């Protein structure tokens, strides 16, 4: 059984629009992979195909050797692929612990009936889920903020909560949709550290991002999409030096490369 999250020959047609035209990507456990491209290059569509939010017209997506193409999105999550959203989708009145607890949902084994009957097994499970949530909070250094309302946090911390919620159920792969957007420099650094910690624990991370400096600092390999096709794959330095990438994505403005991570 081959390890990794592998998407191959993915084609996605929305009516007459060809959003993906044979795109491919591979994420391995413990590594951080970047997916970049201009607006409309198909990054988000690829993201949505992998997470099951849209069903690809053609192509194949395998999770550790087993096909997950076309599974409904909640089953993809249960198979071990977590995602975050570009705009954090959170209840601002909930506390950090409650939010992460929501991410523990797939770990529950007790059924709906034992839950409303209040059986001992359901009560015990709730205690177990709370312990799990607290463990995840410690992992990403959010434990001191556990009782804070999310609405009172800074954007960088909210993104961290989203990451914690995503991996709370023990996901083996984490897909991040533009996590650095709108963050300050110090928040970006904090988030980058947390992503490294998550990857180090054996989770494969796919980073869809606009900020090339952020991707370059974090990712070992980067895939560049252009018009739904893979334009280039390589290490961060190779990509930064690739003239096709510079023309297509980074444009004629080399300043994008020098922007600090």
């Amino acid at each position, binding site marked *: 059984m081959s390890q990794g999250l592998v998407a191959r020959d993915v084609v996605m047609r929305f009516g007459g629009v060809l959003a993906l035209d044979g795109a491919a990507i591979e994420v391995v456990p413990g590594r951080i992979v970047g997916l970049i491209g201009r607006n409309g290059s198909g990054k988000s569509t690829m993201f949505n195909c992998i997470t099951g939010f849209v069903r690809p017209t053609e192509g194949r997506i395998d999770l550790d050797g087993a096909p997950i193409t076309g599974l409904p999105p*909640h089953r993809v*999550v249960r198979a071990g692929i977590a995602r975050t959203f570009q705009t954090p989708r959170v*209840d601002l009145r909930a506390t950090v612990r409650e939010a992460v607890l*929501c991410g523990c949902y797939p770990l529950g084994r*007790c059924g709906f009936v034992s*839950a409303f009957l209040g059986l001992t097994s359901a009560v015990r*499970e709730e205690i177990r889920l709370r312990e799990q949530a607290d463990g995840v909070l410690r992992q990403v250094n959010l434990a001191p903020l556990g009782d804070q309302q999310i609405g009172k946090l800074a954007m960088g911390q909210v993104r961290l909560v989203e990451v914690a919620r995503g991996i709370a159920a023990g996901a083996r792969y984490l897909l991040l949709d533009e996590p650095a957007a709108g963050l300050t420099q110090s928040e970006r650094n904090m988030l980058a550290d947390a992503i490294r910690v998550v990857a180090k624990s054996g989770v494969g991370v796919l980073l869809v991002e606009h900020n090339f400096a952020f991707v370059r600092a974090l990712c070992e390999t980067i895939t560049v999409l252009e018009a739904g096709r893979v334009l280039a794959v390589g290490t961060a330095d190779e990509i930064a030096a690739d003239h096709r990438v510079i023309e297509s994505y980074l444009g004629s403005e080399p300043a994008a490369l020098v922007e600090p991570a």
Partner: protein
Amino acid sequence: MTYWRARSNTLVLLACATLAGAVAARDPAWLDIAIAIVINALVALSVGLTFGQAGILSAAQGSFAAIGAYTTAILTVRLGWSPWLALPVAIALPAGLGHGLARLVTRLAPLAVALATLTLSAIIEIVLRSWDNLTGGYVGLAGIPSVFAGQPIAFYGLAVGMLALAVLAYENLMLSRFGRGLTTIRGDRARAIADGIAVPGLLSAAFALAAAMAGAGGWLYAHYFSYLSPGSLGTELSISVLLMMVVGGARHILGPVAGAVILGVLAQLLPAQEVQGLFYGGALIVILLVARNGLLGLVRREGTL
């Protein structure tokens, strides 16, 4: 005990209901009203769960009560079953139908759900009116065996016991991952899916539990009043329990119960039945202006249930 500290709503309900029962027991007319209020509260609780937590605006909860009531009436009157034997059927049948209905409607937009459930309750009423040899048609079913005949205080105890069990089930659910899941679904379905929740399945389960509560309310109605006609429960009840929920506070577990008590008591003080609609409409406007989260929203923080 931490178990009961987390389930304070059930204890509050039992305490208040015991107190109310002790007061109402002095006057048969008030005891009669108290029983009717508890039955309404049980149906109102079911909209609290479907709308207040799951976010599905259902206008069919009165019809689920009617199905529960007709089920027990038919089984006891036509087939000679014991009311106690009919009770599980009167709960399970609405639950099963509710589960199926939720599968169909929860994909729709909220307003469409309200219209679809309203249409369904109109259809159920037509069936009840037309199926003469089963439901008694327009005339209805009379002679439904009473439970605790001549002992209204015992019946009150039974009704409160069933309401307390429903509140406890609701409370248990909200303390579990499923309760958190329902809250997430109400706010943001894509978020719920990303949490790994099978949204249609969870909504259907919650809807079935709510329909079971309404069915239990119908069973109580049938065996207290001993007579059932197509107008007894149904659309009118569906709308008034929605109002009770809004008045008491949809997000609070005991909100619909509080609303049922307040509107039930105030309705007795009105000079005539005809002004009830005017009164209900006025109450709704006042509540929406003064306390958008319902009366319990004034005294309890949301989330503390």
